[in-house]
């Protein structure tokens, strides 16, 4: 009988079907990398053995610019770092400059209340994008549309306050740029009346969605010690903590209150949760997602209190900051939607208006640095689910 292949070639064909290691480049133009992140995956069949993130596609030299402009001129650049939470970025830099100038205790109450108001609204807006886009990564489209519907209302409120929808530059050194417009408080509380019941709808769409649970529960598990060692903060860290084991509610708004956050009543959601599905373990993608959901509830609670406080708040919305930066250096971290955002400002010894050095410690940058640890050994299809649960904004990572 004639054979098509001689025996030695048959052997080669047999060897060819074994799975080979393969390098797959995911991004920078990939819908589920949330911007221009490039991940190089070393895969063996469907299993990822190594992930190497490559950054820098959105690097805009923010720190170099910060050395060449006055602090007030730098505020618009901070907007463009984490462009989903511009208010929180403005606040972080303003607090750093105020700390350097010794203004921290002199900010009037009214300015503090407005700052808390807009920052918490912005946190809601940012988390809405976070969870909406996360659903999109996992293949469910409708939560994204609903999330953007609510976010749109917040952006409308911001537009009334400062004229911009994304890059606000509203919180500034010494307070906020303008007082709230007339009737804004009523419109804001009307929005909250609309928003709070909607959260329950998201829970039905995502939290209790069995496909969503299957995609997120038990994957990308980040142990607490690793989270701390890598400097992970925000929902990323809180999703790995365990209230029952006595972990502190690690939220800077609670443990190092700024802007008078100690006068507000709110909780820091920490696992274990009553709603946790059986498949989920603490520190996995599902917990990170759920922490964000719970934080929106608390933010809405803070906004309600701030609206009440605003009616009686004393003082002006802004004080005049000094024209020159004193020598010295100050480092301030604030709790942004994605974690602790730090700003480090060094003043020149000659008292100039331009700082010697501006450093932005980006929360997404640190959160992303743990990717290679939590993606090791997962499936290719889980990589978007894990990276999405980190909720990065590349503008902040690359600055």
């Amino acid at each position, binding site marked *: 009988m004639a054979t098509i292949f001689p025996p030695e070639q048959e052997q080669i064909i047999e060897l060819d079907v074994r799975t080979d290691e393969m390098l797959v480049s995911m991004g920078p133009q990939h819908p589920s990398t949330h911007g221009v992140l490039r991940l190089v995956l070393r895969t063996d069949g469907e299993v990822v053995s190594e992930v190497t993130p490559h950054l*820098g596609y959105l690097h805009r030299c923010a720190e170099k610019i910060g050395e060449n402009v006055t602090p007030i001129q730098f505020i618009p650049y901070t907007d463009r770092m984490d462009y989903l939470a511009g208010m929180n970025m403005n606040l972080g830099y303003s607090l750093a400059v105020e700390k*350097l100038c010794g203004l921290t205790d002199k900010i009037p109450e009214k300015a503090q209340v407005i700052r808390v108001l807009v920052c918490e609204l912005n946190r809601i807006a940012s988390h809405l994008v976070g969870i909406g886009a996360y659903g999109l990564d996992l293949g469910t489209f409708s939560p994204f549309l609903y999330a953007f519907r609510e976010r749109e209302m917040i952006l409308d409120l911001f537009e009334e306050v400062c004229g911009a929808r994304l890059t606000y530059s509203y919180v500034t050194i010494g307070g906020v740029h303008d007082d709230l417009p007339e009737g804004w408080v009523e419109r804001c509380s009307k929005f909250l009346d609309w928003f709070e019941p909607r959260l329950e709808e998201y829970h039905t769409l995502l939290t209790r969605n069995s496909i969503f649970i299957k995609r997120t529960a038990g994957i990308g598990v980040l142990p607490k010690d690793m989270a701390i060692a890598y400097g992970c903060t925000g929902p990323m860290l809180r999703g790995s903590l365990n209230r029952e084991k006595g972990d502190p509610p690690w939220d800077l708004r609670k443990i190092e209150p700024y802007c008078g956050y100690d006068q507000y009543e709110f909780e820091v959601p920490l696992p274990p949760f009553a709603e946790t599905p059986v498949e989920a373990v603490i520190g996995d993608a599902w917990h990170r997602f759920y922490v964000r959901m719970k934080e929106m509830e608390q933010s809405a609670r803070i906004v309600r209190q701030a609206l009440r406080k605003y009616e009686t708040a004393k003082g002006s919305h802004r004080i005049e900051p000094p024209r020159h930066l004193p020598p010295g250096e100050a*480092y301030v971290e604030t709790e942004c939607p994605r974690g602790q955002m730090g700003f480090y400002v060094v003043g020149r010894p000659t008292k100039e208006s331009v700082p010697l050095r501006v450093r932005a410690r980006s929360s997404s940058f640190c959160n992303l*640095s743990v990717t290679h640890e939590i993606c090791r050994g997962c499936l290719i299809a889980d990589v978007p689910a894990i990276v999405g649960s980190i909720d990065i904004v590349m503008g902040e990572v690359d600055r």
Partner: protein
Amino acid sequence: MGGAEIIAILVEKFGPRIQQTKPDAIDPYVVVDAGDLVDVCRFLRDDPRLQFDMLNCITGVDYCEPDPAKAPKAGFEPHLEVVYHLSSFVKRHRFVVKVLLPRWKDNVPGQLPEVPTVTSIWPAANWHERETYDLVGVYFVGHPDLRRILLAEDWEGHPLRKDYVFPLEYHGIRGR
């Protein structure tokens, strides 16, 4: 724990190896020699009174006035600082450690000054050190993977140096 107490513990343990202390600064800090950095950091992390288990930030600051007319009045000698911002998850306090370096190793322009890596103490240092190397130009000895992180691999120079000259073009892309 306040900055002054942390400084007292460090001075008690390391004595003259702590080169400078500044308990009255906005963020109290100590200055150590590059050679002592790893020992001091390990102590800061492992001592039960301190427990600095989180490295928040590593910053390189270039103290230099490129304009020779302004240099005498700048108020500082040209040097480089690497600043480590630490915090403790358990103890809830913060602290700052600094290392002072010459701008160039052996005063040869282009030779990067060297600091030992703290990656073995805090894995978070890995990316921060890469960024500091990339933008400020500090060589971290012993770093497992010291590559540029934000800029392109073939980029020349370290942009956050004060005397950095902006390139006019990059691969045929005109800069200005």
